[in-house]
């Protein structure tokens, strides 16, 4: 390209391609893994309405397990009004056409023939826009939208924007499906491992012993001893199974709690005051957990609070290490601490500690980590054995 060639303005669709992504990320970033699918797709509908001239939108997707199509999220329309609808591709030609032709279809006349009559009557739709949620040969569903009544026409630009949003929504839906599938597989895998462990150890030992004890003749000394050993082993197996980690251990971060606190204290935005009490060095084995709890507490504050300041207190004595994060701007809400803090609580349990969280003094919210410190005197007996052998 020669340098004196005039720089052509990018086509409007390219500008449209960036903003949708910004809005989608903004709306979806705060969603946790445990967020209900309805809320997830409500946000997608909200994004559609924010980015286009549409005022009402609903996502309809195929439920492959139940082999039916149903509304899975909406914006500008109470979801309860849609949840009972069971449209099919046969009675919704507008959706069939949108998916087959991979284009945005607008209908202003004959709506009753284009969608199930219940849908048209319910919402008083006069012009309906149906956008395919499909990409890469996969069809996830359709987005039905309108301006809340009144006839209208779509410009080519807006039609293209909606088509792009449909692709983006398909991408988001695909990513969500994969993530949820992976999470389900992980949980199932853990459950299977636990079941296998119990089946292969505890259950077989108990069964063998119950067969032996079921014999009519009294057991001899050797057989009784075998029963005793098998029962002991079964108990030990059971204990090991119960002590399996309930949550992944906090990963090594390559930084320290002190470093992290210094970083957030200097960061713009949230006012963070740090109080290191006494000898508050952080034990190395507590570092990942403490950082994890701090990160979750700050994340919750950013998401759910509007504090004038955040107070972080770090303390340590001979018996325990404590990290407390308080803020004075809790906005109420449903009090659900979110998955992050629950997982942090599981992480703490694995180290014999606890994570407490909750409101206090009205609009204050606190997250508190307490971890007992392992004493050398307690962790090992003087002669190397924790218990004296009775026999």
């Amino acid at each position, binding site marked *: 390209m020669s340098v004196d060639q005039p720089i052509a303005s990018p086509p409007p669709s390219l500008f449209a391609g960036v903003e949708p992504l910004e809005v989608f990320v903004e709306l979806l970033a705060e969603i946790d893994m445990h967020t209900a699918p309805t809320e997830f797709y409500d946000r997608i509908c909200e994004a559609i309405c924010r980015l286009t001239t549409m005022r009402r939108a609903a996502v309809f997707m195929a439920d492959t397990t139940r*082999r039916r199509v149903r509304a899975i999220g909406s914006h500008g329309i109470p979801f309860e009004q849609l949840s009972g609808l069971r449209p099919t591709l046969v009675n919704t030609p507008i959706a069939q056409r949108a998916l087959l032709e991979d284009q945005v279809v607008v209908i202003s006349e004959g709506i009753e023939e284009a969608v199930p009559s219940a849908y048209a009557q319910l919402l008083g739709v006069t012009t309906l826009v149906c956008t395919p949620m499909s990409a890469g040969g996969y069809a996830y569903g359709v987005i039905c939208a309108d301006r809340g009544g009144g006839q209208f026409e779509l410009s080519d630009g807006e039609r293209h924007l909606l088509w792009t949003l449909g692709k983006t929504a398909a991408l988001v839906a695909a990513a969500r499906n994969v993530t949820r599938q992976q999470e389900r597989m992980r949980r199932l895998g853990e459950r299977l491992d636990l*079941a296998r462990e119990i*089946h*292969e150890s505890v*259950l*077989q*030992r108990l*069964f*063998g*012993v*119950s*067969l*032996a*004890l*079921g*014999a*009519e*003749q009294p*057991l001899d000394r050797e*057989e009784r001893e*075998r029963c005793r050993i*098998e029962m002991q082993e079964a108990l030990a197996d059971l204990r090991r199974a119960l002590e399996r980690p309930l949550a992944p251990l906090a990963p090594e971060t390559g930084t320290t709690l002190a470093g992290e606190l210094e970083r957030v204290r200097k960061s713009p935005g949230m006012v963070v005051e740090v109080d290191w009490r006494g000898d508050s060095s952080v034990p190395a084995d507590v570092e990942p957990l403490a950082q994890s709890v701090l990160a979750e507490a700050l994340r919750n504050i950013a998401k759910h609070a509007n504090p004038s300041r955040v107070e972080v207190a770090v303390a340590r004595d001979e018996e325990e290490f404590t990290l407390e994060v308080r803020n004075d701007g809790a906005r109420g809400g449903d009090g659900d601490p979110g998955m992050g803090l629950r997982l942090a609580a599981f992480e703490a349990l694995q180290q014999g500690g606890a994570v407490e969280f909750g409101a206090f003094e009205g609009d204050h919210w606190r997250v508190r980590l307490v971890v007992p410190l392992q004493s050398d005197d307690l962790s090992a007996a003087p002669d190397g054995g924790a218990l004296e052998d009775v026999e």
Partner: protein
Amino acid sequence: MDDRRLRVLVVDDHDVVHWGFRVLLGEQPWVERFFQARTGVEALALARAQKPHVALVDLFLAGESGAELSASIREASPATRVLLISGTGRMSPAAARAAGASGFVSKDWEASRVAAAVRRVGLGMTSFPPKAEQPAPLLTEREREVLSLIARGSTNREIAERLYLSPHTVKEHTSVLYRKLRARNRAEAVQRAQRIGLLG
């Protein structure tokens, strides 16, 4: 009960289970000899050589399928009757029969009940848990009727006429059947149903 003495083979990959059976069955007057195998290869060798009256086979042997081994034992020693045993889950009589077994016992049963089941099967009878302990049937009676007509090659319209149902209802039954059997079409549904003993 018949007072014949029986040769019993126990196939399980857990030493403690062998020991428990040895203690329990060793004292039984109806047990002539007791053999134990940890793998399918050992079990088949013993089945050929000793012709046990009954083989008690763990459904989940390490790396092997107890159900498949059951069929192999029956091939190696047709006179040997198989009693499947498992620590997890329940097996319907139909599924056990499809694997060539004459009974199923669970590892949470009392020892005397297990011993009685071994003896019954060894004597040529069957031993299945009472209905209440069996898994809920996968298909309803109506779905089974529709399935068996599908297996005979009937169309939905023919099935509807035969069972006095509307074609729409038959279509709904077939959809449910496919879902329950995880099948994509009629042929696959029939094939899977045969494999798990739902069709004769």
